[in-house]
């Protein structure tokens, strides 16, 4: 990893990966986020829960600025990633996306070979010039080892990625983010298209990535949030209700809304 990589357990200042203040967001006239102040610590897994439509995806999509592609989105407030305001005019969008990887609900590998999928981001951020084959091989093996996929696909790297099972596709989608060494991984319900076995496998993988990457994961699965995250954020109708250690939040939530949601009394 680069020199910027956090040292797990030794973050003396509890350094922050993402910090938003007074983040408001409108889709046209509809306000989806209200004064969101969040401090997301580096190197840990933070889960985000809340009923459907409360703005979880919207928040994630603001952090890598993919939302602004829709012409009618307006944002106020600040979003700092690794200590830098990504809304600054000098900020290069491509660099933001490089630092912040995103995993979607539905696995979306590109319709090219497994190998090319893993190398896609790497090639884009290296002026399209191809490295020596051996160097690329190293990158591919490394990334696929990290996501626990290497043994399964090492003999079919030139096969189409779209022919893999959903679980394998999702792992590949995580693997292809790694070669460009992002600091933050955003995951929007990464397991909801998978069966229980696949869910377990991907969860295990996410847990493995902890420390080296800051992970923010949206989930509808209480058990998953509880098992697989160190801190937890509960959102309701575009506002952050509670942000606490996961253990704390699930045992003694501070707000009645949180308790209601955790116990399944919301939709």
């Amino acid at each position, binding site marked *: 990893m680069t020199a910027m990589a956090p040292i797990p357990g030794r973050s003396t200042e509890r350094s922050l990966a993402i910090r938003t203040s007074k983040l408001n967001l409108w889709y046209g006239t509809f306000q989806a986020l209200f004064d969101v102040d969040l401090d997301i610590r580096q190197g840990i897994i933070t889960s985000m829960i809340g009923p459907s439509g409360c703005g979880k995806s919207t928040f994630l999509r603001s952090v890598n600025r993919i939302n602004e592609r829709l012409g009618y989105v307006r944002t106020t407030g600040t979003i700092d990633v690794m200590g830098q305001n990504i809304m600054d005019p000098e900020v290069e969008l491509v660099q933001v996306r*490089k630092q912040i990887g995103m995993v979607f609900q539905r696995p979306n590998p590109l*319709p090219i070979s497994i190998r090319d999928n893993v190398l896609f981001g790497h090639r884009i951020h290296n002026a399209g010039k191809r490295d020596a084959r051996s160097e690329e091989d190293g990158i591919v093996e490394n990334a696929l080892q990290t996501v626990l996929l290497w043994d399964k696909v090492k003999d079919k790297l030139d096969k189409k990625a779209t022919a893999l099972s959903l679980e394998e596709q999702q792992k590949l989608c995580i693997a292809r983010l790694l070669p460009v060494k992002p600091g933050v991984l955003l995951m929007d319900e990464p397991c909801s298209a998978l069966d229980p076995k696949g869910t377990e496998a991907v969860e295990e993988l996410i847990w493995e990535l902890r420390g080296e990457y800051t992970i923010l994961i949206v989930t509808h699965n209480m058990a998953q949030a509880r098992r697989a995250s160190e801190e937890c954020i509960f959102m309701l109708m575009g506002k952050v209700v509670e942000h606490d250690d996961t253990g704390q939040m699930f045992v003694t939530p501070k707000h009645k809304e949180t308790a209601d949601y955790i116990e399944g009394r919301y939709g």
Partner: protein
Amino acid sequence: MFEATQLNRRNETTQKLFRLALGGMTGILILPVILILGTLIWKGAPVISFEFLFTGPTKGMTAGGIFPALLGTILLVLVALLASVPLGVAAAIYLSEYAPNNWFTRAINLAIINLAGVPSIVHALFGVGAFVIFFKFGTSILAASLTLAIMTLPVVIVATRESLQAVPEAFREACWNMGATRWQTIRRVVLPNAVTGILTGVILEVSRTAGETAPIMFTGAAFFLPLLPQSVFDQTMALSLHLFVVSTQVPNMPEQLPYGVALVLISLVLLMNSLSIALRMYLRGKKKW
């Protein structure tokens, strides 16, 4: 317990009736096609020979072959393809991948669709004004082909846009999220997946213009030329116009000759269409998601 009830039987009768009616309509639809093709083959096939295809007309066009016209049509379509494909594909890429979704883009899209409805004689007159006179190409293959190209631009754009839009949005999102620029996304993911559709759609659309008469009549096609064209600035004969001439303009025409010309013209268009469909099936067989 499983016997048909009164209602079952009545429903069954109704459904048979409708099947018959709908099938009948389809039959009526197919009949003219069969009649036309049948007549053409019946009357035209005896005329067709190696000599018919590869020599020029003689005796005031009442004998000999159609080679100059056949060659002319192929040339006209090829040059039209060369002109309209780069332009149309570029415009379609811009419109579907770059242009913001606002009233201006929507107005342009509407204009393109309307352009497809402009009668070919209007395109012909535009071609005369623009290419023959203003750009001083004279009546020539170039002027005629450019006129055809302008005429097919809307369909080329529409065919290309459809192929581009058939590429799932998820692929684009995946690329953008890895920091790819729009162009990198287009170049590496969108185009490779759309190119078969674009190619075949475009060939299909443009080859249909082989049968057009009006747009080339005033811009570059001649009734009769003793020599083959030497460059794109020469005039040429063309099958469609030749068919018109031998059917209506020449006295003492052997009855079967026009049928032969029509059969060649139709075969040419069908051949190009089947080629593009075969190409599409071949390429699609090799594809993926």
